């Protein structure tokens, strides 16, 4: 039997019962489509979390108050709640630890912020000039906080572009205007360039004020919420981490490192912890979608078994006029594979559209990767083979005369 004849026979067999073939294909379409869409959501989440972690800055170490936890749980544990870090700790690190390019102690908290007739609730960060270096902040309008404004407790504020849009309207220049943070007036001196973060970690929805001002007029406390340190390069990160830990242990008079009242997180650790979370998340989503793929595969097998039963006489005839077992097996296998491949193609398109829709309407980043498309096709071809083989070989084993007599 020639391959073109095989394809022709398969095509006409599949198109004879369009509704049934269509429904069977639908099972595969949904399975493949949801696998691709789910993986795209998972991978999208992964890359958006990674890029938002990277947008915080590069070669960063973050010292937070509170007990050391296992990596992963430590990402946000106890941050800001314990009060063990001070500006003196920061200046001690600055003067003692080597291989650091910038150090930025910060206090941060959410406040209600108002301007003329508008108001928003946003994160207000008290920082120093190095904040700009550590967090890769560049100015769109005006200027950043200066050492002078830090020492003078100046009531000046730098707005993130989103905050500016919320308070003064998109694209306006608010420098020189006044915002009220927690009922205290601040003069706007600049707007940062958008960094494009999303969600809880939005780097654009923020107000930066001098740390001294924040401590005196907003929090009323002398503690800092975190000290962000930029290492010279990625190679010196662990060395810097060690130096900072040793220094702070000594300053806080703690001899047992496991009892430390602060934790030093390395950006790479945060990234690894976050990707292990998103990997699990992606896997979970894919596994759920995989179940519908399995159900679709069973649908194929069910349809093929029904087809074999229905077409028993046809099989008998084909064998009677010279069809070999291999020809019969191939024919039914080809039908199953054709159905799954059609399902795979439509399902890939559907998954793509779903992913696009999720991004467009739910605002969740998605990434349809080549590997997930290949995976979907591999799986659908495998489903065709596995679930088609049993019905096909059953068809081939029938004795021609018994098959012809079948009613």
């Amino acid at each position, binding site marked *: 039997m020639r391959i073109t004849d095989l394809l022709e026979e398969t095509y*006409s067999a599949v198109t004879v019962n369009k509704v049934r073939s269509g429904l069977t294909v639908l099972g595969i379409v949904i399975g493949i489509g949801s696998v691709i869409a789910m993986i795209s959501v998972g991978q999208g989440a992964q890359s958006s979390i990674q890029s938002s972690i990277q947008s915080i800055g590069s070669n960063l170490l973050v010292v937070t108050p509170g007990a050391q936890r296992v990596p992963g749980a430590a990402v946000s544990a106890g941050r800001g709640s314990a009060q063990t870090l001070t500006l003196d700790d920061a200046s001690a690190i600055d003067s003692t630890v080597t291989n650091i390019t910038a150090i930025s102690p910060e206090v941060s908290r959410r406040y209600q912020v108002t301007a003329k007739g508008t108001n928003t609730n946003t994160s207000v960060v008290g920082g120093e000039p190095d904040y700009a270096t550590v967090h890769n902040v560049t100015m769109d309008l005006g200027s950043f906080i200066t050492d002078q404004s830090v020492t003078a407790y100046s009531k000046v504020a730098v707005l993130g572009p989103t905050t500016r849009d919320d308070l003064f309207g998109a694209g306006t220049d608010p420098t020189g205007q006044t915002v009220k943070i927690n009922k205290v007036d601040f003069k706007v001196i600049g707007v940062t360039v958008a960094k494009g973060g999303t969600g809880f970690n939005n780097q654009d929805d923020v107000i930066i004020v001098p740390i001294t001002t924040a401590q005196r007029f907003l929090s009323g406390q002398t503690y800092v919420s975190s000290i962000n340190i930029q290492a010279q390069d990625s190679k010196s990160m662990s060395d810097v981490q060690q130096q900072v830990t040793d220094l702070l242990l000594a300053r806080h008079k703690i001899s047992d490192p496991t009892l430390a009242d602060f934790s030093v997180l390395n950006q790479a650790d945060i990234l690894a912890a976050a990707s292990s979370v998103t990997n699990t998340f992606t896997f979970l989503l894919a596994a759920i979608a995989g179940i519908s793929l399995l159900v679709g595969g069973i649908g194929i097998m069910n349809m093929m078994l029904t087809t074999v039963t229905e077409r028993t006489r*046809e099989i008998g*005839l084909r*064998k009677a006029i*010279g*069809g070999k077992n291999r020809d019969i097996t191939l024919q039914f296998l080809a039908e199953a594979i054709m159905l799954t491949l059609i399902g795979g193609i439509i399902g890939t398109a559907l998954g793509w559209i779903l992913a696009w829709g999720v991004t467009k309407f739910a605002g969740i980043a998605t990434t349809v990767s080549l590997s997930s498309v290949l995976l979907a096709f591999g799986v659908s071809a495998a489903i065709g083979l596995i679930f088609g083989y049993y019905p096909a070989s059953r068809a081939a084993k029938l004795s021609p*005369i018994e098959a*012809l007599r079948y009613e």
Partner: protein
Amino acid sequence: MIECRNITKTYKNGDMETPVLKGITFTVNNGEYVAIMGPSGSGKSTLMHILGALDTPTLGQYLIDGHDASSLTQDESADFRMKKIGFVFQAFNLLPRATVLRNVALPLIYAGVPKEQREQRAKNALKAAGMDEARFKYLSNQISGGQMQRVAIARALVNNPSLLLADEPTGNLDSKTGEIVLATLEKLNEEGRTIVMITHEPDVAAHAKRIIMLRDGLIVKDEINKDRVISTT
């Protein structure tokens, strides 16, 4: 040459045994034209299936050109059917959702004949079986019983078989179309093909050169059709 040596066939369905053929012995030489007659249920179709290597005897031997057919594997007997045998089934066994032309060309798919050749040969076979050309593109469940019969005959002819087995080939035809089919069979026989035809009409059997009578699974008569043999010689 085909040879039956004391063939018996007993159907077993659970505990129930149905003896159908009870010891059939005969030989058909190449080029013969044999009619098998007998009352309904006497085992004619059963015997025909054995002759076509579609079924195997319970006991006894069936030899094709000296080879025992029961020693063939499924694929070997399929190959043999494809190359040597044309089979007209009593129930036609056409594929209902395929066109007339496709039904007739189907055996050639398994012989690996390319599409254009296949269609040409199918058309020739259909014409030889007296099928109206206007019906070639009809689905095989959209034609009459007599037309189905002719399609079934055309399909049996399409692979140029050396042995044509026809189970009631004129059963559904009016006498005029029946004559066309019988003339076709006669022509094929004159070309040297062996023909075994089942019928219970003596008029039809009269076209054969030899008539075998079957009753209750046994051959009760096996003789040369003198009229026919004398008239043609």
